[in-house]
């Protein structure tokens, strides 16, 4: 075991990654239940209804990504700063508190499900606001844990080296944490409610999370390709400029139809139309660096991590960029808003932009934990990445077909009524899209099983010449 070469912060990162992968499994399981219910509505009816399955599905997603994001920061922080993480004990305590809280919240979701219509339910059971359903007590707990995390990051960076990657992360994480506060209050006014709700949801996934990905992606490039730090950091700043430049006011594309003034049409349409641009930049950047290093005859230090980073760049551009742009103009969005369109976009975007890079970071940690200088792809790893990627792509295409049908039939032809809704839901094209979605979901679950297996065994299956004469990767 070479594990003792790790920083304490990196050991904490491994804990975060472990819970993240477990929650990823929960996300897929509940997604599968919801997908089955679209085709067989009596499945678990009045026991574990669609609303509950779907809530656990999306909450597990958000929480596991946050776990993996915190984990990746704890992993790279001591490495980049060159010093041990300050307050790592406090960080570990926070980890256990957070994990206990998440477990309680999920159990309450599954076994209590809903409550009477009063404030108490919002405090103890659910806030009933998509993505951030966590009850208020958990909100406060999350804020406390995140404050500990932020303190650790800031204190460590101030003590050690201030690399460009760390500076971007510090600024980004404080914005990310601060934004959560915008989703922690109650109002009777549903328009105001959704206005601030989008501050959390959009400014997370289309601004601060994207910048986070750019920073961590830069770190992974340095680690896997030995990419030139100065070039990586230059690109990072360009990406920050373009992502925040388009993403912050791109928030407007959620303000078309919720009781907001009409000027948001234009702001939302054209700022968010630019959101794919930095994603293309990221994509070109990774492939360019790859080509350059190969030209010099340098090998990739961690092939699975780099492969997932490539999936990330493709997926981010296609899912967040192209699929987002397809329905971001208000004239289109008037008909696609509230249909399967955002579901198609959401699946590929979350996978492409965040899931792939987090798996990449986890592979990096697996390599670091074993102290391997280089890590090759195994057969299981290859099947895992192929099944998951192809599965999500097929899922997106299926949902897009269903979405077209729903948009045209329910919205275009039937004027969005109750009757129109069910006519579209029964349309053959819609139903078959849902069928393909379930099939592709099964492929993703199979890929997930292989991924877990591979993460546990990949270091033991390396060819002999790689494992010989290892030097700790992270202390180089």
């Amino acid at each position, binding site marked *: 075991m070479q594990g003792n070469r790790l920083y304490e912060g990196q050991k904490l990162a491994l804990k975060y990654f472990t819970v993240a992968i477990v929650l990823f499994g929960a996300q897929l399981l509940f997604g599968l239940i919801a997908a089955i219910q679209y085709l067989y509505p009596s499945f678990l009816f009045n026991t574990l209804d669609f609303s509950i399955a779907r809530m656990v599905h999306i909450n597990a997603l958000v929480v596991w990504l946050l776990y993996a994001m915190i984990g990746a920061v704890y992993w790279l922080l001591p490495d980049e700063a060159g010093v041990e993480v300050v307050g790592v004990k406090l960080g570990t305590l926070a980890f256990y508190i957070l994990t206990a809280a998440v477990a309680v919240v999920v159990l309450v979701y599954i076994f209590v499900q809903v409550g*009477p219509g009063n404030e108490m339910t919002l405090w103890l059971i659910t806030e009933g606001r998509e993505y951030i359903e966590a009850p208020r007590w958990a909100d406060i707990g999350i804020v406390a844990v995140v404050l500990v995390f932020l303190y650790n990051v800031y204190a460590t960076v101030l003590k050690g080296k201030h690399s460009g990657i760390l500076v971007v992360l510090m600024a980004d994480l404080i914005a990310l944490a601060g934004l959560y506060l915008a989703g922690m209050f109650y109002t009777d006014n549903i328009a105001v409610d959704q206005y601030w709700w989008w501050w959390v949801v959009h400014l997370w996934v289309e601004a601060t999370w994207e910048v986070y990905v750019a920073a961590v992606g830069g770190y992974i490039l340095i680690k896997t390709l030995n990419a030139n730090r100065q070039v990586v950091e230059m690109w990072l700043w360009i990406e920050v400029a373009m992502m925040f430049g388009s993403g912050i006011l791109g928030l407007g594309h959620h303000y078309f139809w919720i009781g907001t003034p009409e000027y948001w049409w234009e702001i939302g349409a054209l700022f968010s139309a630019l959101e794919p641009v930095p994603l293309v930049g990221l994509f070109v950047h990774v492939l360019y660096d790859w080509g350059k290093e190969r030209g010099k005859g340098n090998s990739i230090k961690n092939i699975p991590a780099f492969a997932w980073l490539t999936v990330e760049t493709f997926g981010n551009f296609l899912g967040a960029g192209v699929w987002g742009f397809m329905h971001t103009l208000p004239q289109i969005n008037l008909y696609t808003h509230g249909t399967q369109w955002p579901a198609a976009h959401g699946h590929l975007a979350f996978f492409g932009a965040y899931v792939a890079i987090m798996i990449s970071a986890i592979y990096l940690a697996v390599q670091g934990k074993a102290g391997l200088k280089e890590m090759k792809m195994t057969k299981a790893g290859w099947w895992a990445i192929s099944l998951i990627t192809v599965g999500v792509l097929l899922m997106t295409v299926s949902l897009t077909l269903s979405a077209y049908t729903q948009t045209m039939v329910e919205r275009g032809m039937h004027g969005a009524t109750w009757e129109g809704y069910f006519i579209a839901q029964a349309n053959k094209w819609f139903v078959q899209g849902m069928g393909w979605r379930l099939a592709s979901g099964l492929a993703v679950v199979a890929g997930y099983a292989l991924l877990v297996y591979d993460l546990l065994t990949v270091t033991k299956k390396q060819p002999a010449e790689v494992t010989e004469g290892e030097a700790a990767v992270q202390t180089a």
Partner: protein
Amino acid sequence: MENKPTSVWTSNRFWRRSATWITGVAAVLLILLTFDSMGQMQMGTAEDIQNKVTKRIPSPVVINYKIDYVLDPYRGHEVPIIGGKTVDSATGKVSSKFEEKEKFFGRDDWSEEEARALIHKGKLTIQAKNCMDCHTLLGNGAYYAPDLTKAWLDPAWSSEGPLQAMTGANSKEEAMATFLQNPDKYPTHERMMPNLGITPEEAKAVVAYLKFMSAIDTNGFPRNFGKIKGAVDARK
């Protein structure tokens, strides 16, 4: 160690300063826009209705009025109409008259306080029962069940509609409240709404919220709501 950049375009400092500037200005613009939007999105009062002032989010006392959703050629999309409409002959602009009343659970004199309490309860119930993880409200939520933005105006719930007849109730609001309390007893399709233990008070409050929500100005979303009848699928 750092290589000296030969051009500003490859200078990290140039991009860092630009990124800082761009982020700062975008954030300031968002805050300014938010102040302006928040001013327009505050909930109206009974006084506004008295004075015939149109608000994006009207006072909850709109539950005393007849609500409609009609095309406004001046704004180029449909707008909610509260208590009857007037048409400006010069511009074609359609506005609410705030006159024509409609009974809600047998009354059309809900005071502002009562109406506010009702929609307060309604909103809490909507959150407590997780409506948003099957339905969409203002188009946001999950896509497993119909959008509720203008559900109050849905022809299926009108006196000629199949849903009102199904519950055996005499009015739209009673039909909706009956359905909400025991949705699995009134299956409309294979896909049903589960029983969420909604009490009679909660059901009444939720229906009040639906009526109030249908009067929110959503810039014409959803389009053509309930206007198209007898459309035929190209191919099922």
